[in-house]
């Protein structure tokens, strides 16, 4: 029984934290996100060479061959500073190829994903708030050597910076993932609340996809990938929520009103204590869920629904109170805490909000 990280894992955490603080501070995040389709080739190459893009890719495919718990730790750290780099999308695309690809597809895709040479994203559902196989509406019509895709993918994370798009579709033989080169489709960048999480929509007007670029999936595969998505998003929520708390605590220590630091007043300090309770709690639940992916996958649905069900509401409250406790300055565009509020709202519906996950907890618990 050991629910802690190894020395190697702690070193990895330190490495990520140090690198992100130096190479991608908030000034860089703001610079990148001021442009359309925020991305940095330079940073991408650096993190690729550090091995973070191939963490869960087996060594035989050029990856590091670690587990989701290691990936969760990296995502937690990269999210501390709200980095707009599509590390999460790349990880989910890798997980999808690992789960659904045949030997040839794995050998084709995984090394390029691990090296960062291919930048990919995964888009599963086509409804804004419905996580079910029925919410995959992109249609695949069989043609010679493959299918023709017709429809729209409205919510594709990091679509603009990706060069390959893994899109879920429904064909006559069932569900599948199609790997599409971005040049084949029209990607529209959608204006959205959180500029550090660029999202695009894609129109597919009879797009031909050859058989070697198709990976059939079962509804169980789809659910598994959605659960992996929820683990990845919740890992980022841990890092971002923790930073919101630190930022707000630090402000409460410095801001003087009525002759005292506001952090001395219980109205402020108790709210901060409650934030700590929440971050600490969904952090524990998340670590367990991430561990489940590789070591107890049967427990994954309940474990991640407990974590994301808890985190979705808690982080939004933390985002709101983070801004609120800062007073008017927190409301300004210039001050960073507002970016965390936006990230909390972005995180809420991603791979299921609390209503979805808590209802699933009830169902899995026999209610």
């Amino acid at each position, binding site marked *: 029984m050991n629910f802690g990280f190894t020395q190697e894992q702690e070193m990895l955490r330190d490495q990520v934290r140090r690198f992100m603080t130096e190479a991608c501070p908030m000034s860089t995040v703001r610079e990148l996100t001021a442009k359309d389709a925020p991305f940095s080739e330079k940073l991408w190459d650096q993190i690729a060479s550090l091995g973070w893009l191939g963490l869960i890719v087996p060594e035989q495919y050029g990856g590091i061959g670690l587990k989701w718990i290691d990936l969760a730790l990296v995502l937690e750290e990269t999210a501390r500073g709200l980095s707009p780099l599509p590390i999460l999308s790349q990880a989910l695309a890798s997980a999808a190829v690992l789960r659904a690809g045949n030997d040839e597809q794995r050998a084709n895709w995984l090394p390029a994903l691990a090296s960062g040479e291919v930048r990919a994203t995964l888009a599963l559902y086509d409804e804004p708030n419905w996580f079910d196989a029925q919410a995959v509406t992109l249609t695949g019509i069989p043609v010679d050597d493959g299918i023709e895709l017709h429809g729209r993918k409205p919510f594709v994370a990091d679509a603009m910076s990706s060069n390959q798009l893994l899109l879920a579709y429904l064909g006559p033989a069932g569900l599948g993932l199609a790997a599409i080169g971005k040049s084949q489709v029209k990607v529209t960048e959608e204006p959205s609340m959180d500029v550090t999480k660029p999202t695009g929509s894609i129109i597919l007007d009879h797009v031909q996809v050859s058989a070697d670029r198709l990976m059939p999936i079962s509804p169980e595969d789809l659910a598994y990938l959605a659960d992996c998505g929820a683990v990845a998003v919740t890992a980022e929520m841990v890092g971002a929520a923790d930073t919101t708390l630190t930022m707000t605590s630090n402000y409460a*220590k410095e801001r003087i009103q009525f002759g005292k630091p506001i952090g001395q007043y*219980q109205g402020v300090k108790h709210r901060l204590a409650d934030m700590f309770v929440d971050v600490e709690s969904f952090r524990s*639940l998340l670590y*367990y869920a991430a561990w489940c992916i590789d070591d107890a996958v049967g427990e994954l649905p309940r474990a991640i629904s407990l974590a994301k069900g*808890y985190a979705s509401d808690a982080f939004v409250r933390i985002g709101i109170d983070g801004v609120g406790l800062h007073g008017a300055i927190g409301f300004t565009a210039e001050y960073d805490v507002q970016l965390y509020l936006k990230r909390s709202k972005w995180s809420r519906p991603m791979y299921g909000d*609390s209503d979805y996950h808590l209802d699933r907890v009830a169902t899995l618990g026999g209610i």
Partner: protein
Amino acid sequence: MDFEYTPEEQAFREEVRTFLAENLPRKAERGTDFLATWLAKVREKGWVGFSWPKEFGGSDGGLIEQTILREEMALAKAPPLGTSFMGLAWVGPGIMQYGTEAQKKKFIPDILDSKVTWCTGYSEPNHGSDLASIQCKAVREGDHYLVNGQKTWTTGAAFSQWIILLTRTSFDVEVKHNGITCLLVAMDSPGIDVRPIENMAGDRHFAEIFFTDVKVPVENRLGEEGDGWKVTVSALANERSSIGEVTQMFGKLDTLKALVKRTNRQGKPASKDPKVRRTLAVFEAKIAAMKYNGLRYLTKQIRGEPLTSETSVNKLHRASLEIEMDDFAVELTGQSGLQLKGGSDAVENGRWAKSSLNWPNVVIGGGTPNIQRNIIAERILGLPKD
């Protein structure tokens, strides 16, 4: 990270399970001498004061084995391992750490053998959360202290033979935490008057205690004069890990779910009501958070890393669950939920109605939620003290 147990640990779990299967009859089959037999048997096993050093009659049980023991006992809904909860939880550990050889000899065996029950004299009418301001006075007069003052909310005072008592031996101190002395006092000492207080649930768990010229031999002082605060703080640090509690609360959640499944609301099964489903899931998420928080802290302890007040996190969860779970059952069952034992439409013979009124036992005793928030804010987040 792994959640496996070693073969030795698994064998220990099996040993506990086997013991429970052989020695814990169903409630209906328990005779009048059941409890005495149970206490003797767990004592013989070395499971009372399991973590205590062997030299004091414990078993030197490791952290994981302690966890396993608590988990299995809670799972089997077994009775406690001794009759003196406070004796086992902090009086015994306090005496082992600060007591004289004579005190260890005199008090420790009786705690382990369930011969003596202890209560805890901390709170006073004017000093609850602000414990260090206590005024109950002890004046040294030769070979004894003369104690005058009042304690209150003392759980179990009416049936305890001994009390661990915080007194003020010096009023002339710059810092209120100095000048406090801890005494071990026999409850049958002349000058002690115990008056039970009825709580809102109609129970008489706690009492107020009046001390009038009570003589306490100096040999019954625990630690040095003026060191009482240190003794108390480190005694309270001997808190149990929350693992046993978590098992208990998962059990309580199961009974709540069973209640939901046989309850209708507005003519429809309650189990289909989104609010009901969500509420149950929130309970489950909080209990699971307590579990995994607890395991993370346990891992830290095993590695010898210091814990910085993280246990307050689980105490806050526990407090809110204690209030909300019973209240949920009462609300769920409408007017039936209000009926007490004996009511024609009472739910589970008034069990939830009763327990929904007893939450302050857990929520207020041992530090209110706001005190826990102060602890987290000041010791973990580094915010300035009030």
